[in-house]
């Protein structure tokens, strides 16, 4: 896979869309019209964009309560996302899902869950169905490093390896489970080291470049197709904002997060770095500004559309049960 400007520009556009959509939430959250707990994806954009870039539209994906990034990387549906956050009938869950259960089966994002680890085994079932259909597609589960503390993670890993399920497990390791640091939660150095003991293809990366993550994902999926072993991607990343809510979480005196960590990741911020790379590659600043302006327009319109969309009628309480 060779780098090409067009592809990189597209990856930047997707990351920028996610970043700015999240920042739009921050901008409007205080108005108290989006009455849904948000777990923002700011800082982790390269993971969703990189991995989803390598996927086929028919690969079945499941995610977590921190899935705005995966939702947009999979569907581009900012209008649906804001409608759901505003609790409107035009959202993909018709206002019954909210931020934590944002999903769009028609775009290959089947379910997301607010209970840590619970969607991981769904990827096994998706993979099983794909194998039955012999369609060559995989089941994909995104989950955080906190989910690797759950029993269901190990059950799922064991089964995937034992039965060679066509799954891609993506561990988004931001080092924090709510406010608990990795070293307090795991009795091993690295999840990818442990995973190498299973019959899995395992890769680790701390890249913030979606192109590199896409390339790595494609390579691993190619190996999966060759010998049938499942894939585990251990992708380190960083969450800038508090676990739930919109506040930038730089209260370093609280002890669970260190300023040097933040500085390290901020210096390699996925969105800023991608922009710099594009400028260095000869993309004009004007072209980038035009692309960014289109994103702003689209987001402003999406928010306005959502706010003017109908709220569910009370009869809807009993619908779709």
């Amino acid at each position: 896979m060779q780098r090409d400007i067009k592809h990189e520009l597209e990856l930047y556009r997707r990351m920028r869309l996610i970043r700015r959509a999240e920042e739009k939430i921050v901008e409007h959250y205080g108005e108290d019209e989006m009455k849904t707990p948000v777990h923002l994806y700011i800082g982790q954009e390269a993971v969703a964009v990189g991995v989803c870039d390598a996927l086929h539209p028919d690969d079945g994906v499941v995610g977590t309560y921190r899935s705005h990034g995966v939702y947009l990387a999979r569907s581009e549906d900012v209008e649906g996302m804001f409608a759901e956050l505003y609790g409107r009938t035009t959202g993909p869950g018709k206002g019954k899902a909210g931020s934590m259960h944002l999903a769009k089966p028609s775009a290959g994002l089947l379910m997301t869950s607010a209970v840590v680890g619970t969607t991981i085994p769904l990827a096994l079932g998706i993979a099983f169905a794909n194998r039955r259909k012999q369609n060559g597609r995989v089941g994909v589960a995104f989950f955080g490093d906190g989910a690797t503390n759950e029993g269901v993670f190990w059950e799922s890993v064991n089964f995937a390896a034992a039965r060679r399920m066509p799954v891609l497990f993506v561990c988004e390791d931001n080092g924090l489970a709510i406010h608990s640091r990795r070293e307090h939660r795991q009795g091993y150095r690295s999840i990818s080291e442990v995973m190498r003991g299973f019959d899995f293809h395992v890769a680790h990366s701390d890249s913030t470049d979606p192109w590199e993550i896409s390339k790595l994902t494609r390579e691993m999926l190619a190996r999966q197709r060759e010998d049938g072993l499942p894939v585990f991607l251990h992708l380190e990343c960083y969450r800038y904002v508090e676990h739930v809510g919109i506040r930038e979480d730089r209260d370093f005196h609280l002890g669970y997060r260190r300023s040097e960590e933040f500085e390290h990741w901020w210096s390699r911020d996925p969105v800023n770095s991608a922009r710099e790379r594009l400028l260095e590659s000869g993309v004009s600043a004007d072209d980038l500004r035009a692309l960014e302006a289109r994103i702003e327009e689209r987001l402003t319109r999406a928010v306005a559309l959502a706010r003017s969309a109908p709220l569910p009628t009370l009869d809807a309480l009993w619908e779709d049960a």
Partner: protein
Amino acid sequence: MERTISYREAVNEAHVQEMERDERVFVFGLDVDDHKRIYGSTASLVEKFGPERCFGTPISEDAMTGMALGAALSGLRPVHVHIRVDFLLLAINQIANMITTAKYMSGGDLEVPLVIRAVVGRGWGQSAQHSKSLQSVFAHLPGLKVVMPTTPADAKGLLAAAIRDDGPVVVLEHRWLYDTKGPVPAGELVVPLGKARTLRSGRDATVVATSWMAVEALRAADLLASRGVEIEVIDPRTISPFDADAIVDSVGKTGRCVVADNDWSFCGFAAEVAATVSERCFGRLAAPVARIGWAFLPCPTSRDLENHYYPNAGQIVRAVETQLGVEPMGLEGVDFYTYENRFKGPF
């Protein structure tokens, strides 16, 4: 003449016929393909349909239930089997947080055609962790159907209906029912979910009895008939959705209601039935609704304690007599738990 087969054969026949009818159906779970085949209920499936449609799993109830959900969302129709309902508690997160919420939270986009079969209730010295029933736990969750077939025909017809249903269904089969026999049509049989069945008609009192307790209720009906008391025995068959009308109609006729649920009564299905009867039949009740259930304790092992823990036809007879205000009949020499004389364990 109608054909007579056992409950285990009826369950097996439903699997075979539904798997023949619909290739999306597959059956999996711990030991479904071993030499014992879940008391024979999954016999011949792996031979007939191959290991992709009938396979055993690791002891990973949580992940395997999540896998069933993923498969159901991807166009298949899984039947996940557990030899003890107690093990399903390891999967309650998938059931309560995922399976039962998927359709609603997707605004109706997702359907979850999924069946969970589990064997419940009394075995042979099974003690506290191999003996539960838990229908009330499952029935408490919106979005989940719960069925408890008592007769072989219902075992076949309700399982077929559960497999064809587009939503998640928990099917609870009592261990002691596996050897009971009854008339079962050989061809396709689908018993609609959500419909109670009157097992015996009577004018004096209504006994609502689930699963094995329906067998006890029929025994009680024979005993009471010998003294001229006729009870109506209603088997709800489906715990959720609950066929309240069938029970209300019967109590409207008899004016008395005893609920014998195969479970603890406290906060249970028996309480739900009693509340419904109280709300809808209050003016017609000649006596307060009575509830009969297991002692509200973990199940003990020792046989005498076990017999004391589980109610039987004798308690149903006494409850009906109390409601009617008649002298208790003599039950000396009546042999209860006769099934125990045939069942020699160990499982």
